[in-house]
């Protein structure tokens, strides 16, 4: 069975931060079309602060995710702060104290994060939010495992579904958040939250696959 070590896997969160910072302008631009244009700036601010606390401390994935979630929750307000904050904090809680992360634990981690989001937010799939990337990604991961695919193969399925989910937001009408003001005028633009979520999931999956490969060799 494929697993990777929780210890020292906090570098995954540093890679997430790099990806978010790299896409700061892009995320703010798409947010600016239907929102208030601060998504990239706020996300980059939060992820950068978290990365500064993680870097050089050889953190486990659990510790690094907890650091990230705490920073987002305490330093970034609005809607994205609590949503991503609770997502990462609950992910961290699920894997805390576990030495090895296998596919089942990985799925439980994301499911718990999703539960956290749904416990504070009111959005449903199809409302043009980050859930439109996260929910299908987790479903695809679980579906691949149910089909007897390996952890690595399931991670591939997760990335494909997250990006497909992100792209699906383009044709959706925003029903929650600031963009809901625009109603049908929000059609034709990607949701910034779904876009950042797909970026984060891709880094998580790619890095996890590398660790699985390294652990298996």
């Amino acid at each position, binding site marked *: 069975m494929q697993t990777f070590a929780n210890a020292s896997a906090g570098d995954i969160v540093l890679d997430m931060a790099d990806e978010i910072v790299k896409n700061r302008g892009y995320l703010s631009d798409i947010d600016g079309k239907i929102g208030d244009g601060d998504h990239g700036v706020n996300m980059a601010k939060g992820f950068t602060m978290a990365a500064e606390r993680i870097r050089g401390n050889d953190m486990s994935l659990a510790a690094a995710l907890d650091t990230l979630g705490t920073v987002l929750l305490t*330093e970034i307000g609005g809607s994205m702060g*609590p949503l991503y*904050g609770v997502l990462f904090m609950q992910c961290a809680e699920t894997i805390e104290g576990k030495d090895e992360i296998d596919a089942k634990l990985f799925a439980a981690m994301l499911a718990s994060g999703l539960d956290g989001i749904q416990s504070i937010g009111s959005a449903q799939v199809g409302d043009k939010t980050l859930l439109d990337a996260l929910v299908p990604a987790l479903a695809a991961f679980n579906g691949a495992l149910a089909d007897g695919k390996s952890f690595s193969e399931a991670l591939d399925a997760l990335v494909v579904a997250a990006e497909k989910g992100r792209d699906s937001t383009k044709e959706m009408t925003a029903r929650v958040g600031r963009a809901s003001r625009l109603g049908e005028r929000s059609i034709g633009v990607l949701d910034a939250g779904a876009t950042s979520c797909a970026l984060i999931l891709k880094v998580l999956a790619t890095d996890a696959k590398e660790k699985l490969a390294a652990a298996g060799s």
Partner: protein
Amino acid sequence: MQRFVNDPDEVVEDTLKGFVKAHADIVRLSEENSRVIVAKDAPVDGKVGVITGGGSGHEPAFLGYTGQNLLDAVAVGELFSSPTAKSFLDAAKACNSGKGVVCLYGNYAGDNMNVKMAIKLAAKEGIEIATVVANDDVCSAAPDEREKRRGVAGEIFMWKCGGAKAAEGASLEEVRETAQKAIDSCRSVGVGLAPCTLPAVGHPNFSIEPDTMEVGIGHHGEPGVRVEPLKTAAEVGKEMANIVLDDHGLEEGAEVAVLISGLGATPLDELYILNDAISEEIAARGITIHKTYVGNYFTSLDMVGATLTVMALDDEMKRLLDVDVRCPARLL
């Protein structure tokens, strides 16, 4: 538009610096959190703490209502963006004397989520936070979906009655019930004539065509129920009163408090012109006005427009509304 700004990204920090210098006799900046304003005498022994929080750009709301017999602490967010869960938590901690804290805030997605997280975090520290969510904005959802309505200027009456009740030494549950009753007694409507601009964005965040007005507009430019040709103030005032009173369903002989607030860039004289029509329409329905408040109570940056709030009063609400307060807004 020309502005008094140093750095568009530092508007909130710079506002707070000037605010605490102007009102050092009433408030202070929290020692723990530079986004929390605390009443100078908080926490008061044996008193339930009363807090709120919300995005900036609505001054004098929210922070201007911190003070004696009113709010004990306020969490301050970025412009039009919810404060962090940590700021709501720190506001609660700053005024918790052990009797619990009530958070009286408006129904917005970000605020709802951050308050929920703050409640979880506070519970871990043994602090109980009760909540009342304001939903007085009539046009933001149908009458049978009142829980979806946003909170607007009715929040001021909720803070005033809840704050006065807490100052009398009431329990957490009593303060929560009183504040709930206060906001349940309020109905509000906004009319927008021109949009507002976030300084860091630099252009208006929505548009209102010339010679039109948006009836039912929200505090951040959320869409109204209809766009109409601009009418005379007498007609607009009457329409605002009708929207609020029809939803309220008040009987003849009822007593009310009236609050007319500018949205930031409407001169006071226009608010008084509106009040002339509003008070006549209320009187024509056989309803008595106990008290009228006219001014910039709850604004939206430089939006042109006004809101009307009507609060139904019983003896207790009237008594609490009449309690003297001392706060930076100096409008109550």
